[in-house]
């Protein structure tokens, strides 16, 4: 197990390095300096020179790259260009806790409700509940989260006035954004669990467990679910990535002061240090999450330690 964890850890570092380098290359592929395209204000040549020196843009690329790698290792992404009073770290510090809370709740809600829906559908295979669950699942996959978010606001906040929206002040503010964001991943998990559960329930070892006279509850939870979970664990990473990018639009729609909002703003204002910093930060968070998922997988499936 230790060897497996170490191997996954090194792979994780490699992936972070790849994404960091990719970000660097892409950002420097943009023609011209970010200051040439300033929004309407005229900045004189001396000022640009000073600014470029301040952001190390006058150095040769390899030096810039090393400075950049150092900033990543030290988690110091430098100041924003558009709002020089704030560093990227400040933005992350303000926005990340909110986004993290939103993302984690979404992930928890999606996983629990997705598993429940999938298991019930599989146990009632070809019954009304099964068809209902499949329909919910396909609809959940088909409706984009930003559409769902707008519908939810329209219905529950504007028409019915049941729940508040805008900002982030407590549980009641979280309900709608979490539902909007969790529905898609929930649907994907439900579909996966349903099909893997159906497959597992057909396995001989389930028949053996029945032959032992174990109760149906024990068979489902001890023998079937654990095996049916394996394919789901492998997609949790992808789902988490989807939830993360989903927070961009959800935070925008619900006016939640999270990191996604800063990220979208930085894209629109072409604030390159912020774009670079947040991208690398996001990727790192995701890749670390994937790392933990892999460890959970190793724990669920004893065969994995061998490879």
């Amino acid at each position: 197990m230790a060897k497996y964890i170490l191997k996954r850890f090194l792979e994780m570092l490699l992936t972070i390095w790849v994404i960091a380098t990719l970000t660097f290359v892409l950002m420097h592929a943009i023609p011209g300096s970010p200051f040439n395209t300033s929004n309407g204000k005229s900045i004189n040549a001396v000022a640009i020179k000073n600014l470029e020196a301040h952001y190390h843009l006058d150095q040769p690329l390899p030096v810039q790259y090393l400075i950049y790698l150092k900033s990543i290792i030290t988690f110091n992404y430098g100041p924003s260009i558009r709002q020089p009073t704030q560093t990227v770290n400040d933005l992350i510090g303000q926005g990340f806790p909110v986004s993290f809370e939103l993302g984690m709740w979404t992930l928890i809600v999606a996983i629990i409700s997705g598993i429940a829906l999938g298991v019930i559908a599989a146990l009632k295979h070809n019954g009304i509940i099964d068809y209902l669950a499949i329909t919910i699942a396909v609809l959940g996959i088909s409706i984009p989260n930003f559409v769902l978010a707008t519908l939810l606001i329209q219905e529950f906040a504007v028409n019915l006035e049941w729940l508040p929206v805008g900002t982030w002040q407590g549980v009641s503010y979280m309900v709608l954004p979490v539902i909007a964001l969790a529905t898609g991943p929930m649907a994907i998990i439900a579909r996966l669990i349903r099909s893997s559960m159906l497959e597992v329930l057909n396995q001989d070892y389930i028949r053996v467990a029945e032959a032992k006279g174990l109760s149906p509850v024990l068979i489902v939870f001890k023998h079937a679910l654990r095996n049916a979970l394996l394919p789901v664990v492998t997609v949790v990473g992808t789902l988490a990535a989807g939830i993360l990018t989903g927070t961009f639009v959800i935070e925008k729609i619900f006016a939640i002061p999270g990191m996604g909002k800063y990220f979208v703003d930085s894209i629109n204002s072409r604030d390159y240090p912020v774009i670079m910093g947040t991208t690398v930060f996001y990727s790192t968070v995701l890749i670390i999450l994937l790392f933990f998922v892999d460890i959970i997988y190793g724990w669920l499936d004893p065969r994995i330690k061998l490879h």
Partner: protein
Amino acid sequence: MSDQEPLLQVNHLHVTFKTHGGQVSAVRGVDFTVNRGETLAIVGESGCGKSVTSLSVMGLLPASGKITQGSIMFDHQELTRLTKKQMRRIRGVDLSMIFQDPMTSLNPTLSIGTQMTEGLVHQNKVPRSEARKRAVDMLKLVGIPNPEERMKEFPYQFSGGMRQRIVIAMALICQPKLIIADEPTTALDVTIQAQILELFSRIQRETGVAMIMITHDLGIVAKIADRIAVMYAGEIVETGNKRDIFYHPRHPYTKALLDSIVRIDLPSDELHPIEGAPPDLFSPPVGCAFSDRCPFAMEVCDHVQPLTTQLDLHHRAACWLLDKRAQAVRETVEK
């Protein structure tokens, strides 16, 4: 020989399956008995209903299958009348089953120890430590070296033969009165097969458990069975003890089955496969199910189901050739 009531008595069992294509009559009026401590072999081609019969006894028919007629008396209890919950109290206590493929019979994500003991702990309310002790003893009995350490391991760490030993140990651990083994050696190498069969005989000697051995392999039957039931198209066409079936088969299907096995003592051109295929059980034949493939078929076979003829104390067969009126034909056949 004992004259007490048999351990298992199956009478006139009918099982049908609902499929998209319609009703399939998989088992059509099966009768057999198993006495305490003996081994009954149920022999037949795949699809003849032998596995369905055993699943009916276990109460493990899939949701699409249903017992439509007949009775299953096991140890003074009528199993067809029990609720699911009552049936569960019998499975894993007095009744055990061993499935065909040891590679898939064990849960890949649970340790051997957990899988060995869970039946005892949850079903028979044996304390965990006691259950572990018994599991170790059982593993020893089936010939697993270092059982204490191997209890912690997972199925992928065992070979196929070892896994089947574990599966057998698992079926035995509750000290059942009857074990149903559904083709327990089919998925194994020939050398391992012999070892496992030897293990079965030894276990039966040591524990006195009764067994139903489901198989299509007459070689296995010859080694292990006390009595044999030959199944064809959902019916038992001939029953008898080993000697009856191997040396005095009376049903043409039994004869054909015996002719079709590879025997080292005969030249290979004397191998006679049975031509044709079993009848479609969506619409079972009116007459004898074997008549289409039977080399001795008479007019009557197409129209009327043959009666079961009691040939001697244990030997019975269902064939029109055994009827008095068919004497002329029978004599030409036996030449």
